């Protein structure tokens, strides 16, 4: 034993990669089959932790989307809309069970493609994704109790675009309710993280889901834009950045198509003086460093009562020093790789602005791998409401710390943002928790915890964080229409 080196530095404990087989290239999943893209274009997907090329992904173009939307329309009209709810439910149960059987494979694949730690994909992403299918399977034959009238109907073909931060989980949030409510789907995964969606396509085949009910068209922003602009889509759902969300909304304005948007956030995590301080520290860490801070509802603004600020920051820094940054495949890794070079650049740019504007940065002294995209957990103190790092979404492991003196001031500062997705409140006083949760303008309020999710709990935002809810009973509503509401007719042009 040497004096200064911790003898209990955990030896590497990597998860086995042998569970997954990654093809050298992938086709699009249309009408129940993998088909080569008509665009003839492909792009590489890499492991952000090593920059190793994992595979080539098809870049879906307009013609590919036409095929996918047509397949979805045909499946909707000929099979899916005619199936009773209990039969749709059986398919969802079957998908859930097949995913469960291959859970570890999904976890490894997600970690390789996304860069997030295996501990998180294994314990959070994949189990939650599966839960969404089980949960919605149960709703499929009970939709008349969803609160949208006695005879709720599906929209038809739903277009969905999902982000790269929780690839399979976001797929589940979108696909499970759409199928349970009787819609068919054309889904575009994020450009950097398509692999688990393509494995999910295989699950759809294995579950013998009728062809065309789920179509997965991989690609980049142009593919997404074509899907948004497609006339054959009856309803649209998007999760991603506020910037793209606004563009989608502009593009769909006056089309009459219902849209749900789940966009960015700048979540406030409010710690009152009477909080259980050690657990608050844990909650702060969970709030901002979970998934490298690539979380739309991340608690990226810490609002701490001024009289406990120094003590809390001291405890927080000591806790952050214990965060294990490195190989995402290691079972002991807490913080993995940043998902892409572009995202890393954005994080660097914003943190530099923080220093230029006079905030004080602190990082632990941890080693980073030489290859891949990495960023140390960072906290900024001396942040004021006018700093960019207090207003803009960083989407990385960077926490901005602000202080408040009174409960009213805490709420005022927490609500002083264009966003309104999530907030956390830490206090041992029940009355204060209830009061704060009424006053905060955010779709999700966590009391004495942060970043906890459940399929039964609706999720969504206020203001620039989007509209519509996902999960729970509320999450079904955007996928249903009253029988009295005329459905948007697809334009003739699509049904060639």
């Amino acid at each position, binding site marked *: 034993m040497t004096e200064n080196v*911790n003898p209990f530095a955990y030896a590497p404990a990597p998860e086995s990669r042998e569970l997954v087989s990654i093809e050298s290239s992938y086709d699009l999943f249309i009408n129940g089959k993998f088909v080569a893209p008509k665009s003839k274009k492909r792009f590489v997907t890499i492991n952000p932790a090593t920059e190793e090329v994992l595979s080539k992904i098809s870049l879906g173009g307009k013609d590919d989307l036409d095929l996918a939307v047509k397949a979805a329309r045909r499946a909707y009209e000929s099979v899916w809309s005619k199936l009773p709810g209990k039969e749709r439910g059986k398919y969802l149960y079957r998908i859930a069970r097949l995913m469960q059987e291959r859970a570890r494979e999904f976890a490894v694949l997600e970690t390789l493609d996304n860069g997030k730690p295996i501990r998180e994909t294994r314990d959070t992403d994949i189990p939650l994704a599966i839960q969404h299918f089980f949960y919605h399977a149960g709703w499929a034959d009970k939709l008349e109790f969803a609160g949208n009238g006695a005879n709720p109907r599906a929209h038809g073909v739903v277009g969905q675009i999902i982000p790269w931060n929780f690839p399979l989980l976001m797929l589940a949030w979108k696909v499970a309710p759409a199928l349970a409510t009787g819609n068919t789907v054309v889904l575009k995964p994020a450009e950097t993280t398509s692999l688990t969606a393509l494995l999910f396509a295989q699950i759809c085949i294995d579950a013998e889901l009728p062809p065309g009910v789920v179509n997965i068209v991989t690609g980049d922003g142009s593919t997404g834009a074509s899907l948004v602009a497609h006339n054959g889509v009856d309803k649209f759902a998007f999760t991603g950045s506020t910037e793209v969300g606004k563009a989608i909304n502009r593009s769909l304005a006056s089309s009459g198509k219902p849209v749900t948007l789940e966009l960015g956030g700048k979540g406030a995590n409010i710690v009152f003086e*009477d*909080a*259980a301080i*050690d657990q*608050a520290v*844990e909650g702060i860490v969970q709030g901002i460093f979970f998934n490298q801070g690539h979380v739309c509802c991340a608690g990226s603004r810490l609002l701490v009562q001024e009289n406990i600020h120094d003590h809390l920051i001291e405890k927080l820094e000591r806790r952050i020093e214990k965060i294990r940054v490195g190989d995402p495949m290691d079972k002991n890794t807490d913080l993995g790789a940043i998902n892409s070079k572009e995202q890393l650049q954005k994080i660097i740019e914003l943190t530099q602005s923080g220093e230029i504007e006079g905030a004080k940065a602190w990082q632990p002294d941890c080693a980073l791998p030489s290859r891949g995209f990495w960023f140390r957990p960072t906290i900024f103190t001396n942040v004021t409401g006018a700093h960019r790092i207090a207003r803009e979404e960083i989407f990385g492991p960077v926490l901005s710390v602000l202080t408040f003196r009174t409960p009213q001031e805490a709420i005022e500062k927490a609500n002083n943002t264009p966003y309104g997705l999530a907030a956390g409140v830490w206090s041992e006083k029940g009355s204060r928790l209830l009061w704060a949760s009424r006053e905060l303008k955010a779709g999700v309020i966590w009391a004495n915890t942060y970043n906890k999710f459940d399929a039964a709990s609706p999720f969504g935002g206020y203001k620039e964080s989007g509209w519509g809810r996902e999960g729970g009973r509320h999450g079904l509503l955007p996928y249903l229409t009253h029988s009295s509401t005329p459905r948007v007719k697809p334009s003739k042009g699509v049904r060639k």
Partner: protein
Amino acid sequence: MAKVLRKVEMNQGRTSSSDLATDFGISDDRSLELFLKTLPGVDQVGVEARAAELATRSIKKESKSWAIDMAISMVDLTTLEGADTEGKVRSLCNKAHRPDPTDLGVPHVGAVCVYNDMVGIARSHLDAIGAKEIPVAAVSTAFPSGRASMEVKLRDTRDAIEAGASEIDMVIDRGAFLSGYYKSVFDEIVAIKKECGGRAHLKVILETGELVTYDNVRRASYLAMIAGADFIKTSTGKVTPAATAPVVLIMLQAVRDFFDRTGIQIGVKPAGGIRTSKDAIKQLVLVNEIAGPEWLNPRYFRIGASALLNDLLMQRMKMRDGYYASSNYVSVE
């Protein structure tokens, strides 16, 4: 109850408990109660989630070998039965000294822990087999319930020390604690500490299974540390639940915070329910990540156990030989 604390001489250059109490602003019943009740609360859901998260740490290869040897050297090898005999205690002492007679590379355990009347037998046998360095710990103060007069508790402690115990595992008066008579609990610890003088280390058993709430565990930890405990210990082993991970986590957090505030490093001893190597390694992970690597030392962390030692030895053999041997390859005491 005395309004002013008696001045107590402490071993190892520790500040006297009355100085410590003054540092914490504690002078009487009221100020002690105020102090304990203004400690930050513990959120049950949060602490259990953190403990569960740390339980997923995967300890492999050289870290595992290191952890197994460290855990062996931290074991307080214990027998606390009405049926204890001299023969049983002697064989336990041999086990403590040479846990695996076929492999002299195995470290000796932290201590042998017995009832008061077995202390002399354990001490003389350990000395006879050349294991002078292994301390004998005695459970004291009317263990396990603590339901006796102060006079008896003091006498119990003095007896054990005179018979050769260099570690005293005392129990707190849980009844008094739960009734809110914190000062009475405090004064008992101070008095026992005085009895220990410079001759014995004091481990204070909180019996967390009877204190029930995590807030109580934190309060009792601070109470014991300020009153002069060298170690805070979870349980007697006679009550379930005993050393649960969240309880150990809170106690480790308490010793860490106490150290940051006073510069005094207090040890922690979970006891009861730690039976497998996996359990023991999980405890070491808690030590490493909550209190810090400075506590990864038998001076500051002990595990009260009996069956655990054999499981550690079997894991050790497995790491050495590459296969699991049957339990017949380790000795049964």
